[in-house]
């Protein structure tokens, strides 16, 4: 039994009953109306975009302000354009080069994505498609894990990892990802899987496939957009995670970007806001790039639900 025979055996299409309208005569008017709509839409969209992007634009331009202008010059443009912030940031911190912080962040983020997607998909499938005893209780428990503010959990968790002598490694940050500890993703996938019609599952089961087969060959491909969503979010959250690395990483060579960013500020001596905003901006670019590249798969892939591949 192969995947293609499943799809061939149980393809469902929603077909419109109404026969195609003779649009020929109405085309010129239709087209003009459509163009108008597009124009208005574009204008509205650009306006909203401008408002949303303005603070980021301000951030970008402030990277060219010298440190002393922060607090006095609130305007968009620097009064004394300078590149000194970029120079300072490129020098790294305390002998650790900037690229090292980026690399640490990248490592944490990529491994987190892999772990999260795998473990969350497994758990979500169980919750959504398998009728096992205790499903209700465990599902409620899973949702329950979202509810407790994390600050109360960190001390016991730290003690645990400390006893296992895993402090100053990346393991306390990465291991939980492989154990589906972020209920957000499990829940997201559960919602998406529940959206999938069970027809294909049924057909596959008739053909003798077990849950593993169904999970791997049917559900996973179908929820690709949701998986990509999870990948994108877990990448970004891991990239921006501050508290975890703060607690578990000691050597500055292991610091990821969020920790490194804070090091330009120290209220007891001098704070370099110029360097801070510049480093923030530079830290923003990789995730933005990541999103730009992958958002395509996310949204375009959805439209093929139910259609023969």
């Amino acid at each position, binding site marked *: 039994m192969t995947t293609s025979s499943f799809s061939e055996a149980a393809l469902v299409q929603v077909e419109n009953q109404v026969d195609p309208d003779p649009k020929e005569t109405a085309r010129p008017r239709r087209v003009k109306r459509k163009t108008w709509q597009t124009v208005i839409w574009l204008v509205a969209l650009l306006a909203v975009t401008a408002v949303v992007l303005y603070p980021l634009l301000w951030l970008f331009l402030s990277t060219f302000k*010298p*440190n*002393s*202008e*922060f*607090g*006095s010059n609130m305007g968009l443009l620097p009064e004394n354009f300078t590149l000194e912030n970029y120079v300072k940031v490129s020098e790294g*911190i*305390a*002998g650790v080069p900037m690229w090292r912080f980026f690399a640490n962040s990248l490592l944490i983020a990529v491994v987190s994505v892999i772990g999260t997607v795998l473990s969350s998909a497994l758990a979500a499938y169980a919750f959504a498609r398998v009728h096992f*005893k*205790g499903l209700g*209780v*465990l599902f409620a*428990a899973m949702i329950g894990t979202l509810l407790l503010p994390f600050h109360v959990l*960190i*001390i*016991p968790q*730290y*003690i*645990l990892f*400390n*006893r296992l002598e895993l*402090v100053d490694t990346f393991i306390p940050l990465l291991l939980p990802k492989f154990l589906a500890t972020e209920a957000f993703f499990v829940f997201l996938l559960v919602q998406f899987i529940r959206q999938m019609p069970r027809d294909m599952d049924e057909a596959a089961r008739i053909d003798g496939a077990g849950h593993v087969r169904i999970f791997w060959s049917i559900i996973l491909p179908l929820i690709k957009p949701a998986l990509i969503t999870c990948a994108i979010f877990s990448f970004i959250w891991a990239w921006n995670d501050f508290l975890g690395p*703060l*607690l578990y990483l*000691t*050597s*500055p060579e292991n610091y990821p970007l969020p*920790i490194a960013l*804070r*090091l*330009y*500020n*120290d*209220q*007891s*001596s*001098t*704070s*370099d*806001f110029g*360097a801070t905003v510049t480093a923030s901006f530079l830290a923003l670019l990789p995730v933005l790039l990541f999103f730009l590249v992958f958002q395509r798969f996310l949204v375009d892939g959805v439209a093929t639900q139910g259609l023969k591949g």
Partner: protein
Amino acid sequence: MFSKKRAITVMAFTAGAAVVLAGCASGGNDAAQPAATFDPDEEVTLDLAFWGNDIRADLYNQAIEAFNEEYPNITVNSTFLAFPEFWEKRQTEAAGKNLPDVMQFDYSYLRQYSQNNLLLDLEPYLGNIIDTEPLPENILDIGVVDGKTTGIATSTNAWGLFTNPKLLETAGVEEFEGGSWEDYSEWIAEVTDGAGGAFWGGSDFSGRIQNLELQLRAEGKDLFDEDGQPGFDEERLAEFWESGADIRENSGIPQQRVEEVVPKGAFDSALTASELTWDNFGAGYLAGLGADYTELGLIEPPITEEGAKDLYLKPSMLHSVSANTEHPEAAATLVDFLVNSPQSGEIFGTNRGLPASETALAAAELDPLSQQVKDYEASIADRLGDAPPVPIVGYGTLEEKFRQIGTELNFGTMTVDEAVSEFFTEMDVVLG
């Protein structure tokens, strides 16, 4: 709908959790057994933690290099964070009994960590591994809690009044010549008038608890004594806050304006012409003010009572050793180096404040501002009294609460009476 099956499931989880908990519970204390003598040939690794920014981190790297020239067999792994995160991390480590061997330490946490037996008593090493000659007696006493020396003061600072000469020039007002607190208030009003709205003469001094402390010390009392008893009652506190009312309502910078420039302060945004604060903040202020401002004035704070020894030298930081360290001698050696050695004096200069150790101070190259601070501390020698008791546990919280109440008074969202009762309630919570 509480079925039996559900009950069993829940109990199974609880059991599982209990197993994990048993593993989580902190075991007994691992008391370190100090080795008999320090063996310079022994290969040792030490963890060093400090707070600061990238500049200080660089200096520490240099200092460690210099340290290794003298002690090649001691490897030092340093780690650093910004001040708030530094303490968050230390607290978590303390819970796990995992503090680093050597730590830069803050005065307001010293008592708490000492009394919980987290810091090593350095008494056995004083006079031998840790050189006490260059450290004046009263400086050494600063790090003593309940008879144990758990911290060595590295640098000191004193309360002072910073002014911005350039702004004063613009306002057409002379430097503050010293005087009472009322005189200072009047002077602030003068500057604000002369500034014509561009900036203000100062901020409400009654917003800082240290100013209350200064006044109380002049009256012969402490802010809090060793047992946590306050040296003031509701009436005194109300009186203190009332004294700032004029500045709040008329001549001082509006709180809203201050909030806008956070994380910078009003003084280093050139919005006020004077500020009462610790004297080692000068470097940060100059950096914040930028290239347009090259010098600051530093004079003594207003006088409550003529001749009173109300000022004191506070350690701006200390160094401490973890009680759980496996290498106490090596750790003490590192502490001695960081506090006393001419190399560290030369490398750090006044980055950590004015060095307390004479040998370090002599080697430090003092830029104009640091020289100014040094001169200032010399000039107030007559006004220096004994240091107050090491801050009580919870002092940090109360200091912050005091500051917050100050801002609310400034906003006008609270009356003085409400403020007094709220502060006293907080004291009950924190100290009680």
